[in-house]
């Protein structure tokens, strides 16, 4: 999300600013041994500022009575690293502000002349007034404007700016107060390289920083390295720390003779700076600096509470939209559909102009979005990132090669993954917003090409740049909102998947039940019919001679009823088993089957006169036993419904129709009304009375089921009293590898 052009070499970041080897000349610095307070190191000006007796190298300063209260306080405080102790001491008729830090290289004491007796009370009154007023400011802008005014009055700088960092560490001057001596930088933007990362880190550690003169001569430490560890002394925490020559050059280029920075730290992060500049050198005494630092803390807290307040108001709004949407999703047939049906909530939860949901190659959208094909490519690109949470950019073109072509509607995207395995995303889009950024000097000209050494730019004249292919940046609350919604959707999708799995296992269970049901039918329901038939036959044989003809008729009735019931059970079972039985696929000699079928009918033709016409049938491919059954049922039908024809003409034919083989059975029987053709293949559907044509009504349904299972189709054509033609097809095997 970088929005500032970067110099190709960020050399500033390599400056040894923690160990500059010297201090600014407006005070003196000592490193003492923590135990006996011997002087380990001293700034070269220590003797002249503090008086010789105090600082002779190696002499324990505990023997200097003037310092007894200070040393006592130090002993009592037992400073921990990063803790500070401040005390005013009187040395040779002059007051000094002493600041002490505990470091790995000894106790670091900074002495600064401080004649501002009583100034603290004045500052205190001012600060209290500022704190009271700060509660009233309802925006960060009005708060920071007031802070700039207050700091300028406290310190007397020509210009005080409030400098706010963006996410990419470029900075913008959002508020300013000045007396007109120095030019206004209000609304100007400064590149991230102006304040490099390590400098920002020092601003975080050390909340106030004064450079009274941009032209000072640094005062070296003696000796140059710490006697404790042989390393250069770390002056990170020293207020007097000498600054980088590049920074001084930067100040001079800016036309400033003195500067002071107060850090604004919000929730542990360097939010911005109160940046003060003076044309001429300017010294701010310790009391004024303390007041300014304190003010910085107040402003930081106020910013934090304002941001939190704004954030929570926004979050509340987003949460409400999310709740509405999730409630709707739970009623929708699918969550994708649900999203599309609630565009206001879907777009509102991230303040987007368009949105899309991509799942398993399906794209549903609302509002202003790119073409579906581009959205799919975008999803694939996002998928390759293996994201865990939301992905947001306000400059898609810089990140994705396909971004430039869709920048009109999709300069900004906010995407959340909703599957780990598939490229499934919810993506929000924001259109391009062409903006003009006013830079404080041309940020592209930071590097001196000849020397390959970085120089701060010499001109801070406003340099305008038009920024394209950018959208409004996504706020943190919007990104959080997307993340929260993602979790809700993922849970929702998971729940649906679980429900589906439950349904599947439920189906499997009831399928199993059905299987065992039909298994038990095949054994238990079938047996009694067999027994009835058996006993009826035995009775007939035993009593055959004695039976009256009516009794014999009854016995036949019993036998017929049991037989047809038994056949019904058999047919039903065969039908139900078909769905489960595995197909034993092979090449089938259909010609042979047709001949066998004809023979089986001729065996029992009961004196009927048949004309069988069997054409040339190509081989088929399938389960031979089942296909034979299907074929047989069709022929059986033809035989049955030509009962009153003399002769009954039955034609069996076959043809190769390219992708499949087609076989037909044609007869000259009673035919049927095509209006009922749809019912022909349904179980128990009969078009004729049972008395006229026997059968269980399952034969054609069975044939259809067999052909269906082979991936073929079965059709019937007929005309009442003019015969019927039944045809079925068998697909050829996909791979031409037939046994």
């Amino acid at each position, binding site marked *: 999300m970088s929005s500032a052009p970067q110099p190709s070499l960020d050399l500033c970041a390599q400056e040894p600013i923690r160990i500059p080897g010297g201090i600014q000349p407006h005070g003196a610095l000592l490193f003492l041994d923590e135990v006996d307070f011997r002087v380990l190191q001293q700034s070269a000006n220590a003797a002249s500022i503090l008086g010789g007796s105090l600082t002779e190298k190696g002499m324990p300063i505990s023997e200097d009575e003037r310092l007894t209260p200070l040393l006592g306080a130090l002993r009592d405080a037992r400073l921990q690293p990063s803790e500070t102790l401040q005390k005013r001491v009187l040395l040779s008729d002059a007051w000094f502000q002493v600041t002490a830090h505990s470091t790995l290289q000894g106790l670091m004491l900074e002495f600064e002349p401080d004649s501002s007796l009583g100034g603290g009370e004045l500052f205190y009154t001012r600060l209290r007034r500022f704190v009271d007023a700060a509660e009233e400011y309802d925006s960060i802008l009005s708060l920071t404007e007031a802070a700039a005014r207050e700091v300028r009055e406290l310190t007397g700088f020509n210009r005080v700016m409030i400098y706010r960092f963006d996410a990419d560490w470029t900075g913008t001057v959002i508020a300013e107060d000045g007396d007109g001596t120095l030019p206004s930088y209000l609304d100007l933007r400064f590149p991230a390289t102006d304040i490099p990362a390590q400098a920002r880190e020092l601003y975080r550690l050390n909340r106030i920083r004064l450079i009274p003169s941009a032209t000072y001569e640094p005062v070296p430490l003696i000796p140059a390295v710490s006697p404790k560890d042989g390393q250069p002394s770390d002056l990170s925490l020293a207020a007097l720390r000498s600054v980088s020559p590049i920074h001084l050059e930067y100040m001079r280029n800016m036309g400033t003779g003195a500067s002071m920075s107060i850090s604004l730290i919000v929730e542990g992060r360097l939010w911005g700076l109160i940046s003060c500049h003076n044309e001429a050198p300017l010294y701010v005494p310790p009391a004024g600096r303390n007041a300014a630092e304190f003010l910085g803390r107040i402003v930081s807290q106020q910013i934090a509470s304002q941001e939190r307040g704004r954030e929570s108001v926004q979050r509340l709004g987003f949460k409400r939209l999310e709740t509405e949407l999730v409630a709707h999703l739970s009623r929708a047939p699918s969550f994708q559909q649900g999203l599309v049906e609630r565009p206001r909530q879907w777009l509102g939860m991230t303040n987007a102009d368009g949105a899309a949901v991509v799942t398993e190659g399906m794209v549903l959208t609302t509002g202003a979005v790119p073409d579906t094909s581009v959205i799919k490519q975008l999803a694939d690109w996002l998928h390759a990132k293996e994201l865990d949470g939301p992905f947001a950019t306000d400059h898609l073109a810089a990140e994705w090669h396909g971004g430039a072509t869709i920048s009109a509607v999709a300069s900004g995207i906010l995407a959340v993954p909703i599957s780990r395995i598939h490229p499934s995303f919810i993506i929000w889009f924001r259109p391009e917003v062409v903006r003009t950024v006013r830079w404080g000097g041309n940020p592209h000209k930071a590097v001196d090409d000849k020397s390959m050494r970085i120089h701060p730019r010499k001109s801070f004249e406003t340099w305008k740049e038009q920024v394209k292919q950018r959208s409004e940046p996504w706020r943190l609350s919007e990104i959080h909102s997307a993340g929260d919604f993602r979790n809700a959707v993922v849970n929702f999708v998971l729940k649906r998947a679980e429900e589906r799995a439950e349904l599947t296992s439920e189906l499997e269970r009831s399928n199993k039940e059905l299987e065992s049901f039909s*298994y038990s039918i*095949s*054994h*238990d329901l*079938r*047996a*009694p*019919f*067999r*027994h009835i*038939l*058996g*006993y*009826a*036959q*035995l009775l007939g044989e035993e009593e055959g001679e004695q039976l009256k003809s009516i009794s014999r008729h009854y016995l036949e009735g019993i036998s017929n009823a*049991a*037989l047809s019931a*038994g*056949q019904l*059970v*058999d047919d039903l*079972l*065969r039908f139900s*088993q078909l769905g*489960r*039985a*595995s197909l034993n696929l092979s090449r089938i000699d259909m010609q042979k089957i047709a001949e066998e079928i004809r023979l089986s009918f001729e065996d029992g033709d009961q004196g009927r006169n048949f004309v069988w016409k069997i054409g040339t049938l190509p081989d088929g491919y399938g389960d031979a036993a089942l296909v034979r059954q299907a074929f047989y049922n069709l022929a059986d039908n033809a035989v049955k419904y030509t009962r009153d024809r003399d002769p009954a003409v039955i034609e069996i034919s076959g043809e190769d129709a390219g992708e499949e083989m087609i076989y037909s059975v044609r007869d000259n029987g009673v035919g049927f009304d095509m209006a009922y053709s749809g019912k022909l293949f349904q179980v128990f559907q009969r078009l004729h009375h049972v008395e006229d044509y026997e059968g269980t009504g399952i034969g054609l349904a069975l044939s259809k089921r067999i052909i269906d299972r082979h991936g073929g189709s079965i059709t019937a054509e007929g005309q009442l009293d003019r015969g019927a033609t039944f045809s079925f097809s068998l697909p050829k095997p996909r791979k031409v590898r037939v046994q």
Partner: protein
Amino acid sequence: MIGMRPILLVEDNAADIELTMAALKRSNIANEIVVARDGVQALDYIFSEGAYADRDPEPPAVVLLDLKLPKVNGLEVLEKVKAHPEHRSIPIVMLTSSREETDVLQSYQSGVNSFVVKPVEFNAFFQAIRDLGMVWAVLNEPVPAKRP
């Protein structure tokens, strides 16, 4: 005397027993017919155990075995017999109402000698029983008697 060894009919349904006996009788099969009413009785008979510990050690000419049986079912009986080194050669015919594919498959995998689905029609049933009786009890080479 070959062919005069008993036929073991394993069947729990009384009607089926009666009808099968009638069918065998009509086929003039003179072999003694021993009826076992469940899988346990069948195994006892075949392995000469329990109530049949003292029976004539002649193995049955053929076992007509129903699939669905109380206690130990037909498939289990089949597996036990066919897994036994000595009795595995006793011919076993599954007589069952079932057309279940899995049953048929499993029976053949367990080494059944024949599998007959009892037809509903009595004549067909009669024919099937007669054929079975002839093939397995009369014509088939008898299994050598148990050697001492």
